[in-house]
């Protein structure tokens, strides 16, 4: 049974962080994704949910800090899958969704490093390497996003400064 909204615990998934939950009273949230990308994962079979908040495309051999296992797309996706499976999820059932990767500093300023776009490409590439792909995505543009994953239902929502939450 879904817990009433007031009883829900909001677990903030900060930059570079990874959260895994099977607790139906929890909601995993990556606030204010600019060029960062939030990846949500849900296994409908076991109810295991997880989220990572990825900052940059490639680790280039750097070992992620223990407090920021998902700083980079490559090692972050690997960590997400490893933790999901360790928590009892089945890789074949995973429903993955992506949000973020915007150019919030203005399209002109995004030209320099194209971080949002490169983050999106790097995450998709890493998922492909694992034989996976995102079921849904809300990427690019110029607005920051907040990504929310309700553990009880496995539903994912995205909201921006300009629009209320919509299901992804």
């Amino acid at each position, binding site marked *: 049974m879904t817990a009433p909204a007031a009883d829900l615990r909001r677990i903030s998934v*900060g*930059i570079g962080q990874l959260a895994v939950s099977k607790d139906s009273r929890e909601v995993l949230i990556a*606030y*204010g*994704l*600019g*060029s*960062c990308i939030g990846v949500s994962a849900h296994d409908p079979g076991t109810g295991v949910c997880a989220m990572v908040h990825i*900052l*940059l495309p490639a680790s*280039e051999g750097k070992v992620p800090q223990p407090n920021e296992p998902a700083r980079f797309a490559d090692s972050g996706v690997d960590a997400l899958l490893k933790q999901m499976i360790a928590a009892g999820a089945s890789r074949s059932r995973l429903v993955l969704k992506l949000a973020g990767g*915007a150019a*919030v*500093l*203005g399209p*002109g*300023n995004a030209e*320099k*490093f194209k*971080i949002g776009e490169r983050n999106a490409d790097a995450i998709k590439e890493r998922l492909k390497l694992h034989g996976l792909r995102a079921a849904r995505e809300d990427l690019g543009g110029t*607005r*920051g*996003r*907040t990504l929310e994953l309700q553990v009880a239902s496995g539903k994912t929502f995205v909201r*921006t*400064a300009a629009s209320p939450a919509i299901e992804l």
Partner: protein
Amino acid sequence: MNGIEEKLVASLSGVAREGALRAGRGLSGLMGEEITIHVPSVRFGTRADACDAVGGAEVIVLGAYLTITGDITGHVMLLFPVEKALQCVDLMCGQAPGTTTEPDELAESAVGELGNIVGSAFVNALADHLNLILHPSPPTVVNDMAIALVQAVHAEVMAQGGEVVMIDTVFEDKGGHASGLLVVAPDPMALPRLREIAA
């Protein structure tokens, strides 16, 4: 933090204080009221908590983003809670308070100019004190969640493979309400030069 970083932070803190004073003077003049400046924090790492100064990470802010070019490169961002930004617009345009109710074209233009004046005051103070030639770019108006903007600057710096050093300065009005947050972040390639000056 090692000894060199401590020296860098100490040196930048002094310079940032002067920059903040000049920026605060510019802001006070534009807003027609005295603005209190909080001594800028110079720290290494992610600046998510800097957003508390404008009401929290997810609060919607209006502001301006500038890049610094010249002897060193970096980023400058001035952010206001939307309501405060719109008050500034009315003051700058000589309109009755409450005239501007949403960030329209005129408001965005005024906020861009505000960012230009305050950001440039800070950058010029840095240039004077460090004896560097620095040029602020024309401002880009930003209107989004505070953390999305701060994080995007963090990513720009990190993408160049270095550490993030952010200087955040909080401006408060006479009622004690946060009227703005100024974030300055040098690019990693600027740090050896800054360390050299700090040594």
